[in-house]
């Protein structure tokens, strides 16, 4: 039994290694284009909603905590708090996706969806002129061009989109865990699914821990201080 549990955990870790390399390729693309177009990346980053980004970071960290607590309550054989923690984790995960959807929508109304992905709403944000403080307009720092900003948004949507897809899959896995936990299938002796899905959930949290500063925070210090 112990060997089976170890093998299951090991399998999940091997999968997570492939996930690290998958996201690693995108982080590499990000680093390359950011070093090539620093001003455009800072300008585009400053247009993102830092409050929503920070709140979502908090939501995801809290969900990682409730997931860890779900594993703990399973290990000590407390069924009710275990189910409660799993439900809380699912709710927090869906909250994250909801906030993300609000952000995506504002990028859509500001015409920041790159390329011609959405018919009739191709990339074409309004650019703010000197002294214009309209938050819906793009404030370009010196040296930044629109095609370079568009490159940032390709990478932004690719990375946050893949992250969101992982969250959606995670929400599905949590639903499965909740159903089986309610049937009383997990106990201190057997609970590999809870532990292994927990590992996956924490991994997705870690990806966001890197995405948040890299996408939202890279150009704030270049803004004029009041």
């Amino acid at each position, binding site marked *: 039994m112990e060997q089976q549990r170890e093998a299951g955990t090991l399998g999940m870790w091997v999968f997570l*290694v492939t996930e690290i390399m998958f996201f690693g390729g995108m982080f590499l693309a990000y680093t*390359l284009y950011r070093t090539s177009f620093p001003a455009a990346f800072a300008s585009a980053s400053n247009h993102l909603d830092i409050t929503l980004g920070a709140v979502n970071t908090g939501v995801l*960290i809290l969900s*990682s*905590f409730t997931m*860890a607590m779900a594993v703990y309550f399973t*290990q*000590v054989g407390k069924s009710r708090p275990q189910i409660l923690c799993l439900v809380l984790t699912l709710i927090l995960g869906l909250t994250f996706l909801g906030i993300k959807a609000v952000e995506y929508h504002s990028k859509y109304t500001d015409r920041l969806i790159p390329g011609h992905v959405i018919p009739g709403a191709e990339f074409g944000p309004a650019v703010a002129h000197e002294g214009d403080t309209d938050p819906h307009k793009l404030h370009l720092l010196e040296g930044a061009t629109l095609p370079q900003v568009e490159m940032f948004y390709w990478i932004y949507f690719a990375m946050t989109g893949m992250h969101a897809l992982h969250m959606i899959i995670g929400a599905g896995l949590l639903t499965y865990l909740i159903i089986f936990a309610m049937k009383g299938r997990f106990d201190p002796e057997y609970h590999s699914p809870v532990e292994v899905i927990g590992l996956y959930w924490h991994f997705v949290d870690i990806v966001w821990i890197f995405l948040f500063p890299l996408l939202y925070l*890279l150009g704030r*210090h270049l803004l004029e201080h009041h």
Partner: protein
Amino acid sequence: MSEHIVSVRVYITIFLVLLVGTALTVWAAFVDFPFGLNTIIAMTIAVTKATFVVLYFMHVRYSSRLIWVILGSAFFWMAILFAFTFADYVTRHRLSTGM
């Protein structure tokens, strides 16, 4: 090797550390540090947060050596990916100036 159960106190501590780290990185983002230190500070905080998640939430601190080796291999390949790519990109201009 029996399963190690991490205490609730540890989980709460890590949760609070992660929240403080998030607040710290948002604060640091608005400060104009010299020598382009902003990115280095942001990444140091992110790596620290990730390390806490891996060691405690993901139980790696209490896991077998095998898990450590497998996780280490991921970072090893990431290092190759970044090192070889940038060895190319940062030396490209030498070719064009040489011609």
